[in-house]
């Protein structure tokens, strides 16, 4: 745990020291918070209102995913370019600490970005003249579950994919594109009619738990696959 804490400290210090990144983060939060917040809700009927609220929630998830998809490959690629990854591999840090730290920080940034976008969106909507109804989705269990739990698993998934893709793919644009493209994978069961979405809390809880297991398995496979020696060979290419 000490090693993981060291890596978290390092990644956090680097992000704070990266003013360009901080600017992009703030702009993304504002853009994905203010624009949906300005949209006027439909007057009626109720299903349309529900859809409108779900769209707002989708923007929150989008903000989180965009942040983490940008952050996860970048945390690895700038180490590759700056040759600091060679240094880390030459230290006593374990592979798990080195890459676990990156996954955790990338996921945390995405989650924080999503929450911040949600906060901005709600405040803007209130200022625009709502009666507080736009907060309603947080009043229901399924809304809260999507806003907090689904978002957490989704950012973890993108963080794992982004980190390990960037370890193999040295080009930033390519790594980013592959990471974004990986978002279609969770949608595949629905596209192939292997699963049907049901807007109930129970369904979301089960689906999120299953997805979390898949993400954990992917992370474990990534740590096994990207051993120190394998990385040294990639860096040598």
């Amino acid at each position: 745990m000490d090693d993981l804490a060291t890596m978290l400290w390092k990644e956090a210090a680097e992000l704070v020291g990266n003013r360009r990144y901080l600017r992009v983060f703030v702009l993304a939060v504002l853009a994905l918070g203010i624009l949906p917040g300005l949209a006027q809700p439909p007057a009626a009927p109720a299903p349309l209102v529900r859809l409108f609220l779900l769209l707002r929630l989708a923007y929150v998830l989008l903000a989180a995913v965009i942040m983490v998809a940008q952050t996860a490959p970048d945390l690895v690629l700038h180490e590759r370019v700056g040759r600091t990854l060679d240094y880390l591999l030459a230290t006593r840090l374990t592979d798990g600490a080195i890459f676990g730290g990156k996954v955790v920080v990338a996921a945390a940034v995405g989650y924080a970005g999503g929450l911040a976008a949600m906060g901005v969106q709600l405040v803007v909507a209130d200022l625009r003249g709502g009666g507080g109804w736009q907060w309603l989705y947080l009043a229901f269990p399924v809304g809260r579950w999507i806003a907090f739990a689904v978002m957490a698993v989704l950012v973890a998934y993108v963080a794992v994919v982004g980190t390990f893709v960037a370890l193999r793919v040295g080009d930033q644009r390519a790594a980013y594109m592959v990471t974004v493209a990986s978002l279609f994978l969770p949608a595949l069961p629905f596209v192939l009619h292997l699963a049907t979405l049901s807007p109930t809390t129970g369904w979301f809880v089960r689906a999120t738990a299953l997805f979390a297991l898949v993400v954990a398995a992917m992370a474990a496979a990534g740590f096994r696959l990207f051993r120190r020696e394998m990385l040294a060979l990639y860096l040598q290419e």
Partner: protein
Amino acid sequence: MCRGLTRAFGSRLALDRLDLEVPTGSVFGFLGPNGAGKTTTVRLLLGILRPTGGEVRVLGLDPVRDGERVRAQCGVVLDQVGLYERLTAWQNLELAARIARIPPAERGRRVEAALRRVDLWDRRAERVSAYSKGMRQKLGVARALLAEPRLLILDEPTSGLDPENIVMLRELLLSLAQEGGRTIFLCTHLLDEAERLCDRVGILQAGRLRAVGSPTELAAGGRAAVRLRLSGAPEDLPGRLPLPDGARLAPAGEGEWRAELARAEDVEALVAALVGAGVGVRAVIPLGESLEEAYLRVVGGTEASRSAG
């Protein structure tokens, strides 16, 4: 210690049956042209790569099994020093201190001492991106020394530096070497650097260790060259003498001859032969060879034999 250490990448042998012993507390220079296998050796020593053959022990440990323990006792400056540009010098060293698990109460003191040692204390709050190449190299050395490692591995530490910074860094390395108690493994292709700093050097080429010994031994190279001041030597002197095997004798100016011998101890036999032939030997002057000349002889000779092969 390496015995038969081999590493292949596909069909290419990056390191071919390396036998090497570096005594504790010594400064060992690992010489060789680019691509000779020096960095591969460093990675094998640190347990980053696994050997495809042979065995290796570092500080009594097997880097394959105990990589973490080996790396914990090593300070490393890689050919690309790999500092975090967005962090300050202090933060870079604090990271190294955290990695080395130096207790929080002691961290600040150790970081300060390391920065002062390389004259970067006044610039500790600056980001490394503002540092010159020389300052980065110094900071890299400070980072490697922070945990007081038993083994310091330096891979081309003066690579890409201007002459002024090379001198500055060399003085720093010289002071480290003189402190003693720490084994230093220095990979370099700068021969005067190795000659000044190292107790022993090994010359690696195309993955094979071509020569190993002290700089003086390597400079002698097992051969000896002497300048002779002779009196009464006929012009066809070489043909009249029973010269030792592999020896060559050639005139080198007024009353002087140059002899090249296969072994240093053949000088005595040559002098005896000259005296026996009635030639007066007025002086025997050993001709030294620099490490650079020895290196070029070893590397050049190997290149020539490879070309011939």
